């Protein structure tokens, strides 16, 4: 789309739609070319230092495997360490997103990380979530979907989360000796959630074939990495979606994932999820079709697909149609206020508002429609929290200036009047954060 005369509204729109809203100075900085601001972020950047210095998943998986055998005090110590690592990680992730100079990239990281969810619903995942995201998702947000799918599905955290680490080919060497065997979990969710989508044209036989193909992918307990153990791999040819996958051990999984990524329904599935996230709960079918075509034409080049998203008129339709998730709301509050919120308060906010990072309720990830986040109690809690936040920090801000820097032209006269009439700075800030404009993206 060509924006002839960029306006303040478009700048505020872009910052909310492609980022976590406006921080101080953002609106002024991008108002001459909001679309250019979004597009310029679609080139790879260096890994943020905090993530480059992170231990990564391997030592933590190693610790987890040791902890499994621990008893008594050692077990308690290991659990405490895992909890602390999780807390440190989720605080780091939220602060990185809130302060990023390329917030669109952070939104993409979080979107894809949710698409290929691992969750603390399996408690051992807690200290691995951020490392998984950094290793399997972040390097590929502007690369190919295929590389991301391979990295995510075969990442040790995913192998643990969806049980593949324990799955054994029934006719493999190990399977013949031990009374253990196949687990369909990852095979099914890879087809249903990660790749083809639930109506993507696969059947129970394909679920089983995918599960058999993935047998052997387990943990290297010495290194804490993923590894392929041929003794656990189901021998023989597999047939997936009518295509023969010849016996090739370690290579079968990549071959199968490539086949599935190129399958036409995968493009549609991914396009629909992207459009639902960045455009509207029920995105226009034409927008989904455009994204799916871009996905197919570019063989899943995600930079290309994302550029197509930014260039579509539908993405710029006003007013903003999406409700912020609790995670986006908290991150936007941090960015807008640029205040130093203590770690404990930040974690409490995430817990109270019902969205701890890497804790999605199921392998389908966090839901992505307004109705999923706007239950009466959830909305009440956002308001309660907004006021509590205002009571702590409202006095340190000039709230009338804050409206201009955080919402700009998205703030209507009603909100400006309500703020002007608010009896205290605390309540004024509480009102801005609660307002329909601040709750949307």
């Amino acid at each position, binding site marked *: 789309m060509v924006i002839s005369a960029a306006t303040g509204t478009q700048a505020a729109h872009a910052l909310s739609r492609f980022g976590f809203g406006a921080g101080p100075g953002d609106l002024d900085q991008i108002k001459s070319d909001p679309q250019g601001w979004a597009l310029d972020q679609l080139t790879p950047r260096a890994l943020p230092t905090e993530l480059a210095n992170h231990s990564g998943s391997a030592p933590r998986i190693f610790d987890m495997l040791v902890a499994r055998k621990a008893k008594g005090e050692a077990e308690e110590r290991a659990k405490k360490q895992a909890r602390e690592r999780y807390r440190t990680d989720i605080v780091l992730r939220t602060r990185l997103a809130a302060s990023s100079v390329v917030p669109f990239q952070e939104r993409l990281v979080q979107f894809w990380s949710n698409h290929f969810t691992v969750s603390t*619903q399996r408690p051992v995942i807690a200290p691995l979530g951020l490392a998984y995201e950094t290793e399997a998702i972040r390097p590929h947000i502007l690369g190919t979907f295929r590389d991301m799918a391979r990295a995510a599905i075969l990442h040790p955290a995913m192998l643990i989360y969806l*049980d593949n680490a*324990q*799955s*054994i080919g*029934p006719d493999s060497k190990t*399977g013949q000796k031990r009374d*253990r*065997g*196949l*687990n*369909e*979990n990852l095979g*099914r969710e890879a087809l*249903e*959630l990660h790749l083809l989508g*639930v109506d993507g044209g696969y059947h*129970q036989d394909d*679920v089983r074939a995918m599960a058999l193909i993935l047998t052997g992918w387990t943990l290297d307990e010495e290194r804490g990495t993923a590894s392929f153990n041929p003794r656990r791999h189901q021998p023989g040819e597999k047939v997936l979606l009518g295509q023969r996958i010849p016996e090739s051990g370690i290579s079968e999984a990549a071959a199968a994932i490539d086949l599935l990524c190129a399958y036409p329904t995968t493009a549609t599935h991914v396009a629909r999820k992207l459009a639902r996230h960045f455009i509207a709960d029920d995105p226009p079918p034409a927008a989904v079709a455009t994204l799916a075509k871009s996905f197919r034409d570019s063989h899943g080049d995600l930079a290309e697909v994302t550029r197509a998203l930014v260039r579509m008129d539908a993405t710029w339709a006003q007013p903003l149609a999406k*409700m912020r998730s609790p995670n986006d709301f908290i991150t936007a509050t941090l960015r807008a206020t640029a205040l130093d919120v203590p770690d404990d308060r930040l974690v409490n906010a995430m817990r*109270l508002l*019902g969205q701890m990072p890497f804790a999605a*309720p*199921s392998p*389908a990830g966090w839901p992505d429609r*307004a*109705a*999923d*986040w*706007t*239950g*009466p*109690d*959830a*909305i*009440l*809690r956002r*308001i*309660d*929290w907004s*006021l*509590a936040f205002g009571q702590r920090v409202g006095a340190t801000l000039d709230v009338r200036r804050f409206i201009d820097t955080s919402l700009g032209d998205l703030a209507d006269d*009603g*909100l400006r009047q*309500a703020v002007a009439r*608010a*009896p205290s700075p605390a*309540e004024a800030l*509480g*009102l801005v954060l*609660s*307002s*329909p404009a601040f*709750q949307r993206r």
Partner: protein
Amino acid sequence: MMLHRRHFIATASATGLLSATAPRLSLAAAGTDRRLVLIVLRGAMDGLGAVIPYADPDYRPARGALALAEPGQEGGVLDLDGRFGLHPVLAPLHEWWGKKQLLAVHAIATPYRDRSHFDAQDLLDTGGIRAGDDSGWLNRALARLDGGGKGLGLSLGQGVPLVLRGSVPVASWAPSPLPEPTMDFMDRVAGLYRNDPVLGPALMAGLGVADMANGMDGNKKRDGGKDRLILAETAGRMLSDPAGPRIASLELSGWDTHVGQGAIQGRLANALGQLAETMMTLRVSMSDVWGQTLIAVVTEFGRTIRPNGTGGTDHGTAGVALLAGGALNGGRVLGEWPGLRDDKLYEGRDLAPTTDMRALLKAVLAGHLGVPAADIDRFVFPDAKSVPALPELVRA
């Protein structure tokens, strides 16, 4: 001065500031004096691990390490009717069985056959045959009650699950340690939300129910795993209030036992223990209205008959639903038993479905809540006109 949120609703409505209807109902408007609690087990409960067909000759060979001992033996199942028994962690519910306050329907399934949690839950919630509908069967049923169901529905948890979403406003409640803003502040927020189609109605519904919960519950502190019991207890108290909601839904998770399902102990036993604890909490907090109460426990599908390769079970087809409560004509296991022989299994791996989930749900709505049968066929389960409701589920 701290004013209660309930007071706020009355004031705000009187001044005409708020167009949405407050969820708190007037006595005359309540469409029923019956209470219904719907417990949805998300993740697919293994029916064969909960209500065990111990007398089926194929049970032990098919289940292997997941099989439980016969009644009377150590760790044995608790006999129901000579054919089926309850998992021992459900012992509190076994006492209800003796009072005819528990009933199981075995080999039950929605019309869905494809083993995706997410689509299956969607259909369990919408009561339809295609995924993607946007209203739940329980909300559509609420709309058919006298007075249109306003103020009768309550979701326990921060959000409202699909089964309770729809045109009738429904409240939701979860414990929160945040301080409650003043009425004056909420009035200002309501002004901002006045024209917002999503936030406005949600705020109104939330305000009414928050006040009810506070009024009864004092200052319950949030306590990790105990949230579940606080939810159940609060649900029970609110449902006991003559002017409170009549229908509540809550959800339990932990049922997707692909690994380490166990038999007498393990992930399934843990989840079943939590279910029993939740139902017992409801029983205690609803003692005043127990005679008018039905608890329905449903899940999206059953699990494979045979264990998988990792000591668990994978996604299957038919499973079990439970009914409990003082209004129940229980003490029975319903449903034609299809058997566990290889040639009797659905696609060679799952319990074959013999009862349509909607036969049970229709019976609950018609027999218990008094929703007219014609309304059920027309508005609530339009795809299930040919499915007869299970007869005589509720005490006359």
